[in-house]
């Protein structure tokens, strides 16, 4: 009799276990389903208008006059690319330098100070970066180089700083993942620390470093509040580094609050294009870093 109740108790526990397992499986799909729902909604809201006015005029059209139903996104696409390229020019060298110093050229104590500071850089809200850009950088550019100050250059510098934490943390991870024997072998052959970094560690950590740059790129393209504050937002292709520029993200954020009807749909279409760019970058970054995982 006692045996029987015990057995029933065990069965109950096992049944609970299966239920829990099922519940967890459902929960585990939350992230994937959120991603799917977002994709569906953005695409559903944004694509009809693209096809209505023709993909070509939408993507390659040079004019954006939403009140006259002229929706050409080309200046914003170019704007996003310029600003992102600029951000990489600033962010990649500084980010990689920090990563190398943190992994190879510093003592443990120094690392204990610098690492949290870099992490803090990631925590500062983007509006604060934008604000600092407006207060310090924009007047400086206006006085030194001329032009309105709100420009590709200003946006590139601020975004370059903002992508540093992404580049630094992922590069540090991939440099640390290089087996210590590589480092020791190189030093034993008489190479200096820098030669070791240049000729051994960098090639070995290459795919991780590339992934960090791609993810940094994604951050720069997706950044909204800082860009809106410092890029000047003129919807035309910038002729120089000192000209104002409007990115895809700014285009959405600037006009969303008052847009209605087709104008709003066109902003969602802007979102679709941004979304596609980001997903492509994510997939590429994911592929490069998983290739690294497979061949250590």
């Amino acid at each position: 009799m006692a045996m029987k109740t015990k057995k029933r108790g065990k069965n109950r526990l096992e049944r609970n276990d299966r239920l829990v397992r099922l519940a967890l499986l459902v929960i585990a799909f939350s992230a994937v389903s959120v991603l799917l729902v977002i994709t569906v909604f953005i695409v559903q809201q944004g694509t009809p208008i693209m096809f209505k006015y023709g993909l070509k005029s939408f993507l390659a059209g040079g004019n954006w006059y939403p009140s006259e139903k002229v929706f050409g996104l080309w200046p914003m696409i170019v704007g996003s690319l310029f600003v992102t390229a600029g951000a990489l020019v600033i962010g990649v060298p500084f980010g990689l330098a920090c990563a190398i110093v943190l992994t190879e050229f510093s003592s443990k104590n120094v690392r204990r100070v610098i690492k949290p500071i870099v992490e803090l850089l990631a925590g500062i809200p983007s509006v604060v970066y934008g604000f600092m850009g407006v207060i310090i950088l924009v007047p400086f550019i206006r006085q030194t180089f001329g032009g309105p100050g709100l420009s590709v250059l200003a946006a590139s510098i601020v975004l370059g700083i903002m992508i540093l934490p992404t580049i630094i943390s992922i590069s540090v991870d991939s440099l640390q993942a290089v087996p210590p024997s590589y480092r020791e072998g190189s030093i034993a052959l008489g190479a200096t620390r820098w030669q070791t970094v240049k000729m051994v560690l960098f090639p070995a950590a290459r795919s991780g470093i590339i992934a960090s740059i791609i993810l940094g790129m994604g951050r720069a393209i997706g950044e909204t509040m800082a860009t809106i504050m410092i890029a000047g937002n003129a919807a035309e292709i910038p002729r120089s580094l000192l000209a104002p520029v409007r990115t895809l993200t700014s285009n959405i954020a600037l006009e969303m609050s008052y847009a209605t009807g087709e104008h709003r749909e066109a902003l969602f279409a802007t979102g679709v294009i941004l979304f596609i760019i980001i997903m492509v970058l994510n997939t590429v970054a994911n592929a490069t870093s998983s290739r690294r995982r497979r061949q250590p």
Partner: protein
Amino acid sequence: MKRLGPRVEQKVAQAGLWTMTLVTVGVLLFIIFFILRRGLPVLSLEFLTANPADMGKSGGIFSTIVGTVALSFLAILIAAPLGVGTAIYLTEYTWGGPLTRVIRFGAECLAGIPSIIFGLFGFILFVTKLKFGWSILSGGLTMAFMLLPTIIRTSEEAIKSVPPAYRTVSFSLGSTKWQTVTRVVLPSALPGIVTGIVLSVGRSIGETAATIFTAGSALRMPTSIFSSTRPMSVHFYILAREGISMSNAYGTAAVLIIAILGINILTYYLMNRFIRKYS
């Protein structure tokens, strides 16, 4: 050009890399000191406890602090169970395989999606389709989705760092999987999980682009989760961009920076304790 000797090159490289690192660190310290120097004089008990008056030109920022706390709280309330549940499933219930890869890929992609896209999505789904309007509910749900990947990743790492021996012992004592998870694995991983949650609170405090289109920007004191609210980050943005009041903008920014600093120090402290426990 004569090639530099390796020793010289080493010196040059080291000096160059260190300079760049110090510039990076310098930029960050400059931002923090700049905001605090101009913002701290504005701060007072009254600034923190009075509601904004005259569109924010005068008065304090109390209702925006309430807005920030309400949004973050709601977001965490939704995202934490989902995120931790996903992490438990990924670490304890599956061993690789295509299913795990799909889940992980989904989480990684979600992490890369810019906040403006979340804002657009939240606006269409919660504000218009589900008719929640500009509200704490819409904003909190949108933000929960943004925080989900961070919580999944940090919880996963925390759970993975619990030594496998703990599980083996628990199983050998006759516990079921779920008993092992709730009584052995989760308590040990808790500090790491909490660190991740605190980290995402930090992220939610600074978020602007997603909340401005979902929570609106009403300055009134929110009365329920269906009221529109303006969190500190949005308030700061509007004050600064429309030039309403620079001193109040600096004050708000200082509160934001202090909150983020506090959260970072807290996570660092928690993390170190957690790491010390398992190494």
